[in-house]
């Protein structure tokens, strides 16, 4: 068997510098599954919603610079974040397929002594887990999560625009659901599964953002979901940190724990909730941990 590939870890600004407990669960899950990673001094990806809207050229140049850092070590990138994934994959795709654009960006990169070559690939951690194999994941699990009903939310930048991202079906993604199902938990069918979390418009106005979030929560609760499973820190923060605001707008209480996929897997692998810092969640996990008798 070939030597296990080592990825450059791209935890991103939000996970690395604001909610590192997510990274703790990801690294523990990777360790259990034999997925190897190493660090690099990456800058901001940068944000495909904020920074790209501000200046597309700077977004391309910054993204390309990060790619050259991984290229210099001849290693592929694994991203823990939808936003970083979309930026790095889209920039990589654009520069690999557009000679004119590549020349322009390389002209800019030359000022810092770098050159984009297009020699590496960028993966979302869901793809890396999925490609490893559901059987391999199953072998590492110790606690059966049967009886737990969850709403899966891939978030937008995981698989759109599909022509570039090529991660999963753009309007009916299956990989997250299949990984969740391996733990014994049931992914519920809910009408608003493909609805955005609403974080993007929140940069401009709060009310539409909270209305979208409330609609998403209502739909999941109607389908019997007891928690959300997410794979993006922007969605995580919107759903966890802003849940109270959405409750105020909707005049109701949702009380839904928001789990990162790696947290769900870590718990199913028997890793203690305290070791992955679940206390840092705003929406408490108490209800589901009690239900599953996890201490």
């Amino acid at each position: 068997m070939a030597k296990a590939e080592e990825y450059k870890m791209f935890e991103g600004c939000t996970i690395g510098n604001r909610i590192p407990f997510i990274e703790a669960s990801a690294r523990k899950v990777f360790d259990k599954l034999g997925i190897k990673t190493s660090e690099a001094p990456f800058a901001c990806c940068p944000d495909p919603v904020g920074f790209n809207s501000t200046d597309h050229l700077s977004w391309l140049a910054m993204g390309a610079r990060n790619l050259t850092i991984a290229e210099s070590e001849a290693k592929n990138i694994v991203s823990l974040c939808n936003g970083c994934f979309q930026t790095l994959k889209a920039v990589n795709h654009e520069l690999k397929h557009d000679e004119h654009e590549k020349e322009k960006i390389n002209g800019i990169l030359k000022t810092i002594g770098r050159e984009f070559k297009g020699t590496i690939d960028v993966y979302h951690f869901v793809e890396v887990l999925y490609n490893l194999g559901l059987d391999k994941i199953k072998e590492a699990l110790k606690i059966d999560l049967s009886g737990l009903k969850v709403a899966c939310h891939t978030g937008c930048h995981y698989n759109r625009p599909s022509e570039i991202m090529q991660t999963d079906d753009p309007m009916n993604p299956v990989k997250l659901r299949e990984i969740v199902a391996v733990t014994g938990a049931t992914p519920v069918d809910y009408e608003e599964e493909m609805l955005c979390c609403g974080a993007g418009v929140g940069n401009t106005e709060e009310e539409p953002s909270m209305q979208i979030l409330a609609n998403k929560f209502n739909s999941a609760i109607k389908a019997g979901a007891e928690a959300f499973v997410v794979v993006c820190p922007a969605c995580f923060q919107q759903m966890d940190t802003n849940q109270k605001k959405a409750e105020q707008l909707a005049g109701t209480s949702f009380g839904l724990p928001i789990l990162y996929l790696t947290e769900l897997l870590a718990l199913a692998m028997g890793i203690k909730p305290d070791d992955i810092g679940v206390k840092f969640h705003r929406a408490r996990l108490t209800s589901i941990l009690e239900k599953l008798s996890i201490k």
Partner: protein
Amino acid sequence: MVVVDYELRKKIMDAHIQDTLKYCYQCARCTDVCPVSKVTDQRYNPRPIIMNSFLGLNTFIGEKNNFSIWGCTVCDTCDEVCPQKIELTEIFTVLKNMSIAVGEGPDYYTTQASTIYDNGKAIPMQAAIERRRKDLGLPMVEPPNVEEVQKLLKATKLNIILKK
């Protein structure tokens, strides 16, 4: 009186959006799936953005917080369903870039870009988070080369946009 803004039209048509824009037949599938359109009674609506930018009718610039372009939540759903394969989100990006270049747009965007320019990261590392990472058994986040990032962003002229 309706005034055609040829410069806007040229910028839109020059952007690498292939040649699909002119095939828009205003079917409004984009509006149907737009989550923001749904909750704002179409105060934000992707369909007229495509129509007006193709025609060169500049209804986008000239207002600090113009919701008719800045209401986009960047979910890329309209791109997926467009029967003419128009890359709507890319067109919206061109418009937003133009808005920022003339000093408009919500403060969030320039504040974030400024933070990235100053620190290399959208969220700078804090001592409290460094301690938390240590407690969680995480390795140190390798700091980015800020000097190099700033040199790069001067080459793209972001410093001028941000008045740095």
